[in-house]
């Protein structure tokens, strides 16, 4: 292929332009800033040419042509604002407005409406149509998107979005002719994880954001660029505020990261910021009673407690959603007083071979490179819910170049693209399944099996499916093995990781990680791990990991935006450990019931959107953002709290003026590292898992984190919680239900008693035949889960 791309010359409005042959006229004019009005055309969607707004005059064409569906040809001459073009546009506008109501004053889209704007710019001042306008009954399509379908101009952007981007057609055009309506036909809530994007692309006010409906006008709002805080992509967003109060979040444009889409979780989680249980003032618990105190008193008390405790008995747990500035300052101050037990890997349980991790869990490539992969193996990842925008990239790889996707998961998942093969096995068996693939890969590579894996690999059966997977990875030009959050939570994570690594090595595939949260990568760089300081520096003494801290019971804990009952793997253990600790210092925006019970000092921190900071995404890209709204009551940005704490503790080097000072210091230490070597030498013995004693009612728990329960913010986002009531339920297949002799009623709200360890909770039962035999899906991060044990353990259904 020659590097030189052939171009042709066209003339638009007297200007000579260069264009790629075959490009649509509107793409060419958009690139040079010649604006042609449009409704149905969207750069990321296929051309449908049904709104006719982009009609332009083309030389030698008898009629005006739609710019979105007219390919450019050599020597083409176009006028976008000639009399013929303008008349065509004006007449189209008149038709589009025939059935459009004049309700702009009460329409949420008013002021940012493409129809309104273009009507002013290209429309006429009166209409020839004086008859009755049609009315369309609104549909309830769920908690997130509100409909006002009388306003719809049938551009079909939302329909095409469903098919082409979301990968599931939920909306359609029902009926015919002037009676066409957009809808789901049967009453149904949208279930796509990207559904909120139809709000952004709807050119009129037919689809608007339900949670922020009727709260303010577009021209009154302030816009602040931000970075989404839930997955490892770091989608760019815009936060809109009115009188310093949050109104909504919309997608920002960043072709390299999120193109122009964001997940529903990133769009609607902001509601959690205005949760009723925000921490207002610093508080200290005295004799079991909470006392409101000044910041000075609170920070002095913290310093006193930290000085009183032996550094080896202090454990520090931080959320991987905290900004890199916060994580770095926490790490810096704690290390300075001799604390080595710091961790952000709250849900991980197997820390074996943690030394062999690279500088941070790198994606292994850039986000856009995912689209160039020919074969992918996803190990332990519900990627669609975990990392919606990465799933979107994988989908593009499948659709555009027939990439073959394989998964190794504890349950069958629904994908929005064809998956070559899903290897489904219960959580314990999952290790053997992957070991089978690894054994097959060794047969291909003829490499020597490392000693630590020999026993495991020799014992497994190599199936034809494993062989075909290994061969596909080997034969693919670009192949990758991704480790997801289910793998990280898995009790045999180190083994899964070692197996993934050898599979990658043997087949020439890349090894990549889907970092769990928005700043997991940042936490590694900031040294929020027990075995490394900032920028991967060496520690003198390796501290305790999350699991060791919770198990061995430190007597003092410092928590940064962590709710142990919800954020840690084993809630029972975490609750117990916090309860018996002498002192728990919690820096958090929220006051949950369990926090009031467990903590001794509460420092209210600013929530996401109230603080400036930086997240580092899975690719290693640093993205900083400013505060968009005011801190709640007495709450302060956590980086400021930690800076002052450094001063109170009498430490050197805590004289930062702004969060960017903190970031720059760390960035300098990191020396611009953006790529990491993910491959490592597999040595040592890997965790072996004991088989569960299978009795009649014992089932293995699959405890992946529920879509909207991953962190404190999203757990408080009302609309998202309402949209997914099935999160906090126990799911198992009908064969198990019969085997256990459970009586299942048709009532959807049937409750069963679920016992894990010593605790029992009552929760709804859902039949789901995609759950393997002997297993239940009981997601982590939910209310019920906050009373139960480890995400992967045995549970009983007692009634």
């Amino acid at each position, binding site marked *: 292929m020659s590097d030189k791309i052939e171009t042709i010359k066209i003339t638009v409005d007297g200007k000579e332009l260069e264009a790629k042959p075959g490009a649509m006229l509107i793409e060419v004019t958009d690139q040079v800033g010649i604006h042609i009005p449009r409704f149905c055309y969207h750069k990321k969607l296929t051309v449908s040419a049904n709104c006719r707004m982009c009609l332009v005059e083309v030389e030698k064409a008898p009629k005006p042509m739609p710019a979105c569906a007219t390919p450019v040809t050599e020597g083409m001459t176009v006028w976008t604002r000639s009399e013929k073009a303008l008349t065509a546009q004006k007449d189209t506008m008149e038709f589009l407005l025939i059935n459009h109501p004049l309700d702009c004053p009460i329409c949420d889209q008013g002021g940012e409406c493409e129809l309104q704007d273009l009507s002013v710019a290209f429309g006429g001042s009166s209409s020839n149509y004086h008859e009755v306008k049609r009315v369309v009954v609104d549909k309830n399509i769920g908690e997130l998107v509100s409909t006002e379908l009388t306003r719809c101009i049938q551009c079909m952007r939302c329909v095409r979005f469903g*098919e082409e981007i979301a990968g*599931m*057609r*939920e*909306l*359609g*055009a*029902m*009926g*015919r002719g002037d009676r066409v309506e957009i809808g*789901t*036909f*049967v009453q149904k809530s949208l279930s796509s994880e990207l559904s909120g994007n139809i709000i952004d692309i709807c050119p009129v006010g037919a689809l608007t954001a339900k949670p922020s409906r009727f709260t303010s006008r577009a021209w009154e709002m302030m816009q602040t660029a931000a970075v989404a805080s839930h997955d490892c992509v770091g989608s760019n967003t815009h936060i809109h505020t009115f009188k310093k109060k949050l109104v909504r979040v919309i997608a920002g444009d960043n072709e390299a990261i999120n193109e122009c889409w964001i997940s529903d979780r990133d769009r609607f989680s902001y509601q959690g910021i205005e949760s009723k249980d925000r921490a207002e003032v610093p508080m200290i618990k005295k004799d079991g009673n909470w006392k409101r105190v000044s910041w000075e008193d609170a920070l002095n008390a913290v310093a006193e407690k930290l000085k009183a405790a032996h550094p080896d008995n202090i454990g520090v747990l931080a959320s991987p959603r905290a900004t890199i500035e916060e994580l770095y300052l926490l790490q810096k101050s704690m290390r300075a007083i001799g604390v080595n037990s710091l961790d952000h890997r709250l849900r991980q349980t197997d820390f074996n071979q943690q030394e062999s991790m690279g500088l941070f869990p790198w994606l292994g490539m850039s986000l856009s490179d995912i689209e160039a992969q020919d074969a992918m193996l996803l190990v332990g990842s519900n990627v669609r819910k975990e990392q919606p925008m990465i799933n979107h990239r994988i989908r593009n790889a499948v659709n555009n170049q027939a990439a073959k996707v394989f998964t190794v998961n504890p349950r*069958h998942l*629904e994908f929005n693209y064809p998956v070559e*093969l*899903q*290897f*489904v*096995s219960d959580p314990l*068996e999952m290790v*053997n*399944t992957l070991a*089978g693939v690894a054994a097959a890969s060794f047969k291909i590579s003829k490499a020597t099996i490392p000693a630590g894996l020999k026993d495991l690999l020799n014992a497994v059966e190599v*199936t034809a*499916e494993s062989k075909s997977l290994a061969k596909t990875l080997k034969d693919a030009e670009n192949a990758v093995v991704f480790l997801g959050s289910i793998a990280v939570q898995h009790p045999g994570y180190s083994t899964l990781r070692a197996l993934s690594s050898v599979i990658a090595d043997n087949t020439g595939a890349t090894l990549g990680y889907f970092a769990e949260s928005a700043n997991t990568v940042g936490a590694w760089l900031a040294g929020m791990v027990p075995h490394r300081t900032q920028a991967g520096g060496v520690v003198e003494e390796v501290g305790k990991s999350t699991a060791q801290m919770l198990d061995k019971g430190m007597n003092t804990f410092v928590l940064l935006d962590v709710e142990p009952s919800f954020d840690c793997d084993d809630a029972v253990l975490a609750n117990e450990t916090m309860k018996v600790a002498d002192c728990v210092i919690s820096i958090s925006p929220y006051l949950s019931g369990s926090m009031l019970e467990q903590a001794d000092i509460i420092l209210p921190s600013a929530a996401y959107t109230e603080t400036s900071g930086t997240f580092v995404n899975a690719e290693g890209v640093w993205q900083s953002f400013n505060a968009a709204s005011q801190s709640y009551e007495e709450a302060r940005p956590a980086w400021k709290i930690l800076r002052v704490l450094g001063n109170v503790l009498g430490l050197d080097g805590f004289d930062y003026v702004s969060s960017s000072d903190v970031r720059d210091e760390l960035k300098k230490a990191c020396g611009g590292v953006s790529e990491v070597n993910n491959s490592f030498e597999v040595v040592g013995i890997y965790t072996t898992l004991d088989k569960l004693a299978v009795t009649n009612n014992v089932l293995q728990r699959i405890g992946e984190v529920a879509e909207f329960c991953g962190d404190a913010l999203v757990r408080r986002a009302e609309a998202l919680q309402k949209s997914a009531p099935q999160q906090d339920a126990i799911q198992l297949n009908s064969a198990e239900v019969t085997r256990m002799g459970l009586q299942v009623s048709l009532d959807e709200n049937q409750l069963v008693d679920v016992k894990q360890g010593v605790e029992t909770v009552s929760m709804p039962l859902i039949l789901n*035949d*995609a759950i*393997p035999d002997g297993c239940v899906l009981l997601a982590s991060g939910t209310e019920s889960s906050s009373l139960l044990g480890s995400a992967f353990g045995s549970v009983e259904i007692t009634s």
Partner: protein
Amino acid sequence: MFVDNNSLESVTILTEHELHEIDGWLKRFPEDQRQSALLGALRAVMHEDHYLSYEKMDAVAEYLGIPKVAVYEVASFYSMYEMDEKAAGKNTIAVCTNISCMLNGSDKIVKHIESKLGIKHGETTPDGEFYFKIEEECLAACCGAPMMQLNHVYHEHLTLSKVDELLDTCLPKRSDDDVGESESAAVKSTDSIVDKKGGK
């Protein structure tokens, strides 16, 4: 461990006849173009049930491997499909009331059928024998106006007696009393309603 390739299989509620019909249509199109058989598939369901239930539409979607909403779109687009159970008469009468037929007296035909069957346009007789479809679009048989479709078969140059005759052939054999009644209803109007000019 179990390995599975497709989503979990479920049992379809489509009848053997419907499946046979759909498979027949599928054979005529490329293998990766299963949605092409949709019109035929819905026709087969209409033939069996005389209307498209949600369950059957969903079953068709699943069988063809296309989104449910794509089936609803097609079913709501074409007037030959009925989605209301009430429309599920054994025989469907559709009288064209577009311009040519209207000028040739289709209104009288409609009135006649309404009084003969004792139902209004858009209703089904209580015994479920006849469904009188509302306003059919032009069926491109203007040279034979007024015309109607009876169970999708074209009948042109209609007269009231011709309509009676056609409807009677659809009725199941009844006891003598019943026949007498229906005949007496039909007797009233057997004359041609318009003066034929031209015609055949």
